[in-house]
């Protein structure tokens, strides 16, 4: 009898099977993303060539087009200009164009940053306070309130788009950063309260009691003792909130045009000569992907622990 392996360990066959499934799934998921990244490094022609080019000569044209506005000029005019000073000017000239100024992309991108991080911070902060209260105090109608909070997630947010649109116009919140931060915070808050309440419940109340005996007020104890221990939960919650508000498209299209427009509604509208500028769109989406990716990688350690946290009673 083979006694060399434990019955708790999966067999090497099931390990291999699991690995194969994961690899296949990863490849399928990565194909569109890698196609997007590849498109961002193609030039306009190879991006739309048929059959699609898998091997191509990389170019930064998409990124240059993403960040600049350009206009086509006659060859004589181009010849009359002084020699191009930078590599991107040279690239644009080779297409018989000149740069007329920066595009709106950076502005939209920073709107996304402000609104994404702003609403994430607000959701997590308010969510943590509410979760703590629900976890520690005798709140009247606690269960009903928690269900009520959860019920705000039971319909797709876009179902209330029209009333919100009208309300925002009347309140002057349309196309403002504050308006979008409030909107995304409201949508995320129920998730944040529920997730964080689970984590708060896991933290023994003796820690705050110890801090209060050590001379701290309850609020100080919350910040100095409870929050640091809830970091896992906070990280996990922050990632979920960030992913939602960063990617949100429908409300952004509806409620923002100029001041507070985020990147998702802006990127698909990048139009070059004779149609959509696919390399620029690829470049935009690639850059759009980065912050959430970096944010998630930084918090990954917490996220993994966060999702499985509390599964096993210590």
């Amino acid at each position, binding site marked *: 009898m083979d006694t060399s392996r434990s019955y708790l360990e999966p067999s090497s066959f099931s390990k291999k099977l699991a690995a194969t499934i994961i690899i296949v799934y990863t490849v399928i998921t990565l194909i569109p993303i890698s196609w997007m990244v590849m498109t961002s490094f193609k030039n306009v022609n190879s991006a739309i060539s048929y059959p699609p080019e898998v091997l191509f000569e990389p170019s930064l044209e998409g990124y240059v087009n993403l960040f600049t506005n350009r206009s086509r000029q006659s060859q004589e005019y181009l010849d009359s200009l002084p020699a191009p000073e930078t590599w991107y000017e040279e690239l644009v000239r080779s297409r018989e164009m000149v740069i007329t100024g920066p595009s709106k992309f950076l502005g939209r991108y920073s709107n996304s940053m402000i609104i994404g991080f702003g609403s994430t911070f607000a959701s997590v902060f308010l969510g943590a306070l509410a979760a703590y209260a629900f976890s520690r105090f005798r709140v009247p109608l606690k269960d009903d309130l928690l269900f009520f909070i959860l019920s705000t997630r039971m319909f797709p947010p876009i179902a209330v788009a029209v009333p919100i649109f009208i309300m925002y116009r009347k309140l002057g919140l349309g196309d403002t950063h504050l308006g979008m931060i409030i909107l995304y915070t409201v949508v995320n808050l129920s998730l944040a309260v529920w997730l964080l309440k689970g984590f708060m419940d896991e933290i023994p109340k*003796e820690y705050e009691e110890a801090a209060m005996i050590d001379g701290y007020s309850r609020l100080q104890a919350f910040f100095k003792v409870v929050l640091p221990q809830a970091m896992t939960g906070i990280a996990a919650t922050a990632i979920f909130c960030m992913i939602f508000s960063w990617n949100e498209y429908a409300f952004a299209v509806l409620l923002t045009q100029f001041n507070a427009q985020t990147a998702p509604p802006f990127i698909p509208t990048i139009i070059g000569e004779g149609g959509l500028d696919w390399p620029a769109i690829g470049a935009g989406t690639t850059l759009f992907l980065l912050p959430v990716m970096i944010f998630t990688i930084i918090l990954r350690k917490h996220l993994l622990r966060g999702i499985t946290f509390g599964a096993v009673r210590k």
Partner: protein
Amino acid sequence: MSKIKIVNLQKSFGDFTAVKNSNLTINDKEFFVLLGPSGCGKTTTLRMIAGLELPTSGEIYLGEEEVGMLRASERDIAFVFQLFALYPHMNVKNNLSFPLKMQGYSRSEIKTRVEEAAKLLRIDHILNSNISSLSGGDRQRVALGRALVRRPKAFLMDEPLGTLDAEFRELMCLELKKLHIDIGATTVYVTHDQLEAMSLADRIAVMDGGEILQADEPSVIYNKPATKFVASFIGSPGMNFINIDQGISNEQSTLNIEGTDFSIPKQYEISKGKKNSFGIRPENLSLTNEGGLKGSVFGVEYLGSRKIITVKTNFGEIKVKTDISTSVKINENVQVKPSNDNIIIFDGETDKSLKSEFMN
């Protein structure tokens, strides 16, 4: 350091009364133990002294000040939790300095005090360690250290040795006692372990069902228990009780059980009813051939220096502590007799011990 006084203290949770009308005075520099089975209200009493629970009624005095309704942070006491509650995101040094930071001490003062406490508790070599890497005993010491850096008015401890293994508990017991002698702090200590209570306490309060049954020195609690519960809870094994269906009259000094007259200390109190009990500790009983209660040997436990012999009688099992040379066989017929007059009669209606020449 201060004395602690609680007056008519009561605490209810909804319909349940956890602490009933309790009165206690804990003297300055005293090591005071609240002892009782779980659910007896000892921890609730301690938490009210700490300010972690607010009393339903009654007063708590810390020194001369009435603190019953003050926040925990305003009371200047220290609390050692059963699970230590050391802040896991800070290292030992930061755990120790955490209470001092709040009180606005200068950096150098904090450093001196932390080092002083660490030295006293012999944890100065692990000041920079993480809490998670410490052993149970070291965590215990850090928890004590966090309590004593502040030099509070009183130390409150809620079963601080409860999670340690037996061997270590004994060691920490000794250390705690020594620490108490060194710093002379008023200490209120909660435990359900009577041995711990006996070895640590200057005075013990035994609680049951939310009431303080008796508060006195360990030897008095052991030898002259005020109620039947105290008598059975304290001691290992507990006191033997023999139910007697007869009233006790004043000046009575003999008691007839199963046709045999036993002499008892002269009674000074009349029993309320006819169902009373006769209480005697196992070490005050001996085996005899005649003139005792008849029974048969049910079991023999060998304890190294002593033997405990369980005798089955018509009044239930009676435990007798004998010396090691006594040899009896299972089922052998024996008789049991008191070897001195450390005998207490408990009133069947009130469960209280009756006054006598011994219980004066």
